């Protein structure tokens, strides 16, 4: 083997070795890399019990109840399979609205209510002018015909 192909081997081995190590490390840390749990995972008891964690999902339409004279707000989060009730006191981000994807940080109380101390809005990867979004909505409402929407 000449010098050049020995160096080629060395580079290939480095890439291979580091890739394997990374895959193993990422698999081991998988749980910690999960930025948030879904309502289904909480129902199945996968979420941690005694420390705070994040839950992500869509705000259920018509579930947002604001308390008068305070910033407290209650709403339901869903991943279209399970529902988790959430309570939060504070200022909500601009994108918070019914049907919107959000991520809340907090912990579960004994009754299964998620007490959040931070609420972040998640937005989707779709970008379009408001008129197009309106037209899509109208088409969706009117008979739910055509192609299924993906978001």
């Amino acid at each position: 083997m000449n010098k050049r192909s020995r160096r080629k081997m060395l580079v290939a081995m480095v890439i291979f070795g580091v890739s394997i190590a990374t895959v193993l490390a990422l698999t081991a840390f998988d749980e910690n890399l999960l930025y948030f749990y879904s309502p289904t995972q909480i129902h199945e008891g996968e979420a941690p019990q005694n420390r705070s964690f994040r839950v992500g999902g869509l705000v259920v339409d018509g579930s947002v109840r604001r308390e008068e004279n305070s910033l407290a707000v209650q709403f339901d989060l869903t991943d279209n399979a399970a529902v988790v009730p959430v309570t939060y006191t504070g200022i909500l981000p601009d994108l918070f609205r019914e049907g919107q994807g959000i991520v809340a940080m907090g912990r579960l109380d004994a009754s299964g209510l998620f007490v959040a101390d931070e609420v972040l809005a998640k937005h989707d990867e779709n970008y379009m002018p408001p008129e197009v979004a309106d037209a899509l909505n109208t088409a969706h409402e009117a008979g739910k015909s055509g192609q299924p929407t993906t978001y």
Partner: protein
Amino acid sequence: MWNWIQKFSSPKYFYDMSAKLIPWFAIPALVIGVYGLYLGLFVAPPDYQQGESYRIIFIHVPAAWMSLFVYMVMAISAGIGLIWQIRLADVVAAASAPIGASFTFLALVTGSLWGKPMWGTYWVWDARLTSELILLFLYFGYMALQSSIEDQRQADKASGLLAIVGVVNIPIIHYSVEWWNTLHQGATVAKFDKPSMHIDMLIPLLLMALAFKLFYAAVVLVRARNEALYRDRNRRWVRELIEKI
């Protein structure tokens, strides 16, 4: 074939050729960049959810794409330098690192400024943001190794190896939004599906991406010329160049 590569990759030949190439990248970069920004900031319609704030995408996304692209250029050049010991490849890798770091920094800052109004926070430790921050540190590590090792060949070897090792981070950044639940949304353009973006927004975005690429090409040539001159400062062709002045 081998002789041919040797001739075209000689620093002297590169120094002469690149001078003619630079304007062919720099001028289109400026023209397309200004036109793309104009389309993006004034002509493109507002977004249905984010209103006008989404317009930072025309800087944020091209900068983020370039942060990955420049890293790949740097790592491949470093690999070529390591295996075939072509000095020009090491020059290109060394010249690329600060540019890539700047693009990464720009992507992180614009993302942070975008995150505050939309998500409600400047920073979260989700997989996408964290892996992009690691990319910035990889660039810094490369630059630190380059400048801290006295012997240029040893410096190229050590920093080149770091650049190659860091390549594993590139697919992690790209797929982080698919592999894990992240606050950052999924891919809009860079996916096999049709882009989830209205055509009037997509065109300025792609123009800006092209402008950023051309800008990089022009800047990396300028920087690589300087680097080649500096590294060969004791060789005859540089001496002759100086005497001519």
